[in-house]
């Protein structure tokens, strides 16, 4: 992947955004996993 770097932006700000988005992505995955768990327990439990 070749992308444009934001050379003018401090790396700390990039890191905060990068980690923040990874956490947001992870929480979304947790939510999907929890929803599937609830759905299956309700239907089959």
């Amino acid at each position: 992947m070749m992308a444009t770097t934001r050379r003018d932006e401090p790396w700390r700000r990039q890191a905060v955004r990068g980690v923040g988005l990874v956490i947001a992505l992870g929480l979304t995955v947790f939510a999907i996993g929890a929803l599937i768990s609830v759905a299956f327990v309700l239907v089959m439990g």
Partner: protein
Amino acid sequence: MILRPGADDIRLIAFYLGKVLLGLGLVMLVPTVIALFAQEWNSATAFVVGASLCIIVGSASSARFATRRPLTWAHGMVIVALAWLIGAVFAAIPMYLSGRFGDPLAALFEAMSGLTTTGMSVIHDLDHTPLSEDLYRHLLQFAGGQGIVIVVLSLFAAGGARIASLYVSEARDERILPNFIRTARFIFMVAGTFLVLGTTALFLALLGAGFTPARAIYHAINLFFASFDTGGFSVMQSSIIYYHSLSVELIVMLLMMAGTLSFGLHFALWNGNPRDVLRHLETRTLAITSTLFFAAVAFGLLRTGTYDSTEALFRKGFFTLVSAVSSTGHQVNVGDTYLTDWGVLAPAAIVGAMAIGGMASSTAGGIKAIRIGIAFKTLVHDVKRILLPESALVVTTYHAGKRRTLRDETSRAATTVLLLFLVTHLFGAMVGLLYGEFDITQTLFESVSVGSNIGVSIGVVSPEMPHGLMAVYIVMMWLGRLEYVAVFALMGYLLSLARGKAKA
């Protein structure tokens, strides 16, 4: 006509291998210091011997064979394949000297498992392993996860263009920044940021779970290395079950997911382009396959009555799936549970998830989601070509950093590696069956786990496992980590040494 490599080629390979050994020796100095500080004299002696050997051989080799000749792709492939093999042999020296392994082969298994981030362990009495030896095992996963050759050569500044071929040979085919040194630095920056944040979060969670500050920091550092580098080694025999903490499990899951995200996608997120991540073929493939696999796990576990609550299903089933997909191998079940309590469908879904593994150009192993996505696109493309009129022009595109057109060579490369993984998994399972101690469920599960560098174990891998099977698993871990190409290039190179025609 195959040309025989000359003395200059061998010299170049020896020069770079020397650099890698030198780097490995420096890695060994970290646990040496810890061993001296903790007064673990036996371990300190083992590390001093190991580090000295690496540094002496590495320095001698890089000084004796010093060259400024540029690397070709063939050199890159051969260096990487040999570096991972020789690196594992040298990394095994302090392990064997520690006396915690039955024989040198077991120590080599552990070293290869660490470097390839597989995470299977054959160590004796893990729960009473000295601090320095635990840290060393986990540091190996960090070095391997980041790509040991790249770690070393970017530190020794071998030159951006010159290490390009090594970067690709280590199964890191995604070029993030135009310069490879800058790419390597970006990878370190991501790992460093997660190291600080992940270790702090784990430290606080472990304090909350009742650990003393000293034990919390020790477990947090090791857990971070094992989770972010998708390695799966553990400080305790019982792996993650030991902590009995939901917050530790959630943080570990987040770190495993961060580790399985390709560095290219980390780059997109750092630059505020989350849409690039969501549109990427690999993200979509992982999202679809993981959802389907988890649905199968949930259905299987509820049908067999193994768990009956949402919390148990999430903490046991979902955690295991994330551990498998990310190729980490952390366990929240003892090995036998998959066999005795999980029925058939749930373990089968875990095997499927392990086979696919994580994303290319990440620390994860397995076939890689991008290859599954490309194989699926190829299938759809071929079906379209059959159904549409012969004069119709069928063009299939996919998103991977940018919109790309599906080409025959991309399809062929993806399906070839996919096939090689499947054949290796079956081969490993067959070899396991030859010993007559395990059934096909056990050998297939373990073979996929080893061949995809995952580390979730059903109980075949143990200090008492047959030596022949151990040797086969060592080769499978090596092949899986380098995704075959570099190893085949090495074989071709050896063949050309024996049967090639001398250069004019």
